[in-house]
């Protein structure tokens, strides 16, 4: 990976990291979106898009409100795309296993990375105190600056989270790479079903919609029949 690409990934990481909570909330931080963006930057869009699709549904119902800190799916997804770019070999079987391993690492690191978000929010408590002291001296521009300084902490938290994913993922893949290459990974495609199934099940479990079984089966049946018809 070229130095410019590392730089662009760092910038992207901060922008989408801030989009999660601190700023716009345009949803650039969703795994599907940020994986696609990172894929464009690193020129491995198909793999990045696949990873984004795998991870998108997992935390769909975790809402970024109040004091509830949701797992950092954003940075772990970007980190995952970087790892795919670094370790993919072009061998279909190996790359599929790599994709799954990166997915598993992302799920674990997303939980661990919450601590950086918590750190940034605790640092922001001090900003409030400083803003109050600026108020005493009627220094209005300094008062507003304290508010915008919070962006720096959130940005640092995002970069730290990305770093953790790259470190843990990089170490694991470099250790397991040899074993993975020796495994005869069949082409049954069952492993690829795991992420969508867990994502869908997790969402169904949390949504708690009345009559969810007939609704789900209806959606399943109609789509399956349509696909069969289109194929036939």
């Amino acid at each position: 990976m070229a130095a410019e690409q590392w730089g662009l990934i760092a910038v992207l990481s901060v922008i989408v990291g801030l989009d999660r909570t601190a700023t716009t909330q345009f949803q650039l931080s969703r795994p599907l979106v940020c994986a696609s963006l990172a894929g464009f930057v690193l020129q491995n869009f198909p793999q990045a898009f696949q990873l984004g699709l795998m991870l998108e549904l997992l935390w769909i119902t975790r809402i970024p409100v109040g004091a509830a800190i949701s797992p950092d799916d954003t940075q772990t997804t970007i980190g995952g795309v970087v790892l795919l770019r670094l370790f993919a070999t072009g061998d279909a079987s190996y790359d599929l296993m790599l994709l799954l391993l990166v997915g598993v690492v992302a799920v674990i690191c997303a939980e661990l990375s919450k601590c950086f978000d918590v750190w940034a929010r605790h640092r922001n408590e001090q900003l409030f105190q400083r803003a109050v002291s600026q108020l005493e001296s009627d220094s209005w521009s300094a008062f507003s600056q304290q508010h915008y300084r919070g962006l720096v902490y959130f940005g640092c938290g995002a970069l730290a989270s990305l770093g953790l994913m790259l470190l843990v993922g990089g170490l694991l893949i470099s250790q397991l790479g040899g074993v993975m290459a020796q495994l005869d990974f069949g082409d049954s495609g069952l492993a690829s079903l795991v992420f969508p199934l867990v994502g869908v099940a997790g969402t169904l479990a949390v949504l708690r919609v009345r009559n969810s079984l007939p609704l789900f089966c209806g959606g399943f049946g109609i789509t399956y029949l349509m696909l069969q018809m289109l194929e036939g």
Partner: protein
Amino acid sequence: MAGTRPLSKIQLARLSGRSLLLQASWNFKQFQGLGWLCLLLPELKRIYPVATLRSVVQRYLGYFNSNTFFVPTIAAVVLSLERQQRLEQPIPIAPQAFSESVMAPVAAAGDAFFWGGLRPLCCALAVLAGGLGYWWSPVVFLLLFNGPAFMVRLLGPWLGYQQGVQTVLLLQKLRIVNLAALFKRLTVVVLGGIVAIEIHTSPATGIMPAVVMVGGLLALLGIVIAVRKKVPLAVIVTVLIGGVICAEQFF
């Protein structure tokens, strides 16, 4: 009296723009408190003379938490009340009391709509399109979610400033919580479609379609139960992936 002219559309649009940075200093004690004050500050400076500004600002210094998309609407109502207060016109409720009383109900309705209803539906639709191979699905997701969000962010302040406290009644009439419930139901239907696409496109289905379909749906049921029993996603994913890879090696 200086600074008591009503806010123009441009000023209201600027208010919406500032609200994009509402949570820049989010923290566990005051939540959006500092951001809320920074959102109001430029207009408060316009309404009040420097001599009284500090005492006005101190009224708003503290806890604030609401739905980010509806906050500009609340802010516009508050500024309308502040202006009326400055002009010594009768007001139905004190501006700060208004913001304190509506932030929680508006947060509940707004979060249910945007985070609980709209976003899961848009995500599910994007994944469905992505599963069918449409690479532009992230763009569709962004448009579907941000369309209503932009509308609320831009039109909300204008409506809030014109209608004042009556805006709350308008929001009630919109029944956005019912809309959120409808979106949730639609999400479940789309999730069914996603599983159908995954199973249909899986190479395993070509070898043993009935087994994969029944097995997939049973696995789904099992995972739903596991998630409801609070088993962490990381554990579920790791066990399932590990199990499938081991099975691939031995069978």
